[in-house]
């Protein structure tokens, strides 16, 4: 059984940050990083563990963000209920896409392209329908009360984001230690062999995409509360689908902390290149892209894979001369 204490250690370390610094810049950076970590953890479950590479996690993120925003603005529903409702609609979209894709046996790049298409279709629909505010977007009314899921300072937002990330880590660890998790990894490794051993691959993949969507949906609701504004490009834009897969892949897809570590790396990288290039617009994206290519090229298993490889180095160094002597 894989242990839970590393989650406790990492979360405890992150939880004390607001006591150390009150800087809004630092907290804002950390909150957006945790947001991406949460979005990516959803992707990690389906893509990293299950081997189903979605390019359209924006579909879950955006649906949840719009659900909570519209419920609040149009129907005066409480924001905490909006969080719950957003997670429900987000996972419903996940389940529907899952049924359609997996029922028809879509695998590999076909699955990726279809998920991308779903997200794009939702983006276009939401940019023209009145209920989403069409091209103008939806603005959530300022109401700085904890009951309304809005806060004066950033620290409570930070802790809520951290709590959601912690919960997602615990969920994924529980899955790792379960039969469902073992089946999911088996499907990633070899789907035919998995079904020969009695695994109903359709229902395992369907459960995975639904839980995956629920985690990413929670991030969508959080985004809406934190920024109080969404439009079609934010909610369903490719940026969120890309960050969703980039963070866990950089971190080492299919490992528990992949998304959290990866989110820190890509966010820090993004900020650093912006600082370096200063006024030249767009140049930061070029450097950002080059560094990402280098990371993926040099460490195809991500940070987690790199760490494992490094930890084995001393053994190899010892083993080699022994073999030479024999």
């Amino acid at each position, binding site marked *: 059984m894989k242990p839970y204490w590393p989650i406790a250690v990492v979360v405890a370390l992150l939880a004390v940050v607001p006591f150390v610094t009150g800087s809004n810049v630092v907290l804002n950076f950390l909150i957006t990083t945790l947001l991406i970590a949460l979005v990516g953890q959803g992707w990690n479950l389906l893509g990293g563990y299950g081997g189903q590479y979605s390019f359209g996690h924006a579909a879950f993120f955006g649906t949840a963000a719009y659900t909570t925003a519209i419920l609040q603005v149009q129907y005066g529903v409480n924001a905490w209920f909006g969080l719950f409702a957003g997670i429900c609609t987000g996972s419903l979209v996940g389940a529907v896409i899952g049924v359609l894709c997996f029922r028809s046996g879509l695998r590999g790049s076909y699955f990726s392209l279809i998920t991308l298409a779903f997200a794009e279709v939702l983006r276009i629909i939401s940019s023209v329908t009145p209920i989403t505010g069409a091209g103008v977007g939806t603005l959530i009314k300022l109401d700085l009360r904890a009951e309304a899921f809005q806060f004066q300072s950033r620290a409570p937002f930070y802790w809520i984001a951290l709590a959601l990330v912690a919960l997602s880590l615990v969920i994924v660890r529980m899955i790792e*230690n379960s039969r469902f998790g073992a*089946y999911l990894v088996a499907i990633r490794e070899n789907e035919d*062999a998995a079904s*020969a*051993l009695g*695994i109903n*691959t359709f229902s395992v993949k369907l459960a995975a995409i639904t839980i995956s969507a629920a985690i990413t949906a929670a991030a969508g609701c959080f985004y809406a509360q934190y920024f109080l504004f969404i439009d079609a490009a934010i909610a369903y834009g490719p940026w969120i689908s890309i960050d969703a897969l980039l963070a866990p892949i950089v971190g080492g897809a299919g490992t528990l902390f992949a998304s959290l570590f990866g989110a820190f790396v890509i966010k820090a990288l993004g900020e650093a290149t912006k600082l370096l290039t200063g006024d030249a617009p767009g140049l930061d994206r070029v450097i950002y892209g080059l560094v990402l290519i280098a990371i993926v090229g040099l460490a195809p298993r991500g940070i987690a894979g790199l760490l494992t490889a490094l930890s084995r180095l001393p053994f190899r160094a010892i083993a080699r001369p022994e073999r030479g002597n024999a």
Partner: protein
Amino acid sequence: MPEFLLDVENISKRFGGLVAIDRASFHVKAGSITALIGPNGAGKTTLFSIISGFLAADQGRVVYDGSDITAEPPHQRARLGVARTFQIVQPFARLTVRENIAIGSHLWQRSRAAALDAANDVALSVGLGAQLEAPAATLTIAGSKRLELARALAIAPRLLLLDEVLAGLNPSEIRDMVPMVRELTARGMTILMTEHVMQAIAALAEHVLVLAEGRIVARGSVQEVAADPLVVEAYLGRGAARRITAGSAHA
């Protein structure tokens, strides 16, 4: 329990214009080892895929333990007790040997710990005890073949379909595997195997079916089918049996 654990009735399968299986019918007696032999391309693996549910037949029925399973998906057949190995080994490459086998054990064990424990026992029974923690990708061919067998055994099957588990092994590895396969019937399993290694078929199979160009051309004991001119022709070409007899008459 019916006398025949498996009845294959009038199965046909076409790939475009090619008739891969042409009205094949046979029975597999419960508790027996039956071998399905034939030249390359005869349709053995296709027939296996139809029996295990990976391919749908165009016509015919597969009856297992008295009930029609023709429409059941592969995972449902596995649950009913039909296990298969793959001719081209299909390991879960990045998992260890023990984790690979545990995927099979999970069919009857919900808990991870229990499944991993059960996998230990299965690994020992096929001689993979020393490689429990090795990633499946690092196994030799002989090791991978044993792993294929171990995973299939882990679901505790009643009917075991072995698709060339001895192919690619050297003679001493084959000598190790043969008693292991025979022992499985002592544990109550029924085996249908395809194989090219005749030495192993002679040692194991009570009943042999010969498939050529999608048709069952001969059936019987090893001696009976080896003497059948149709079988000789299936392997060596039309007219070969007559030429051989003529040749030996001259000598």
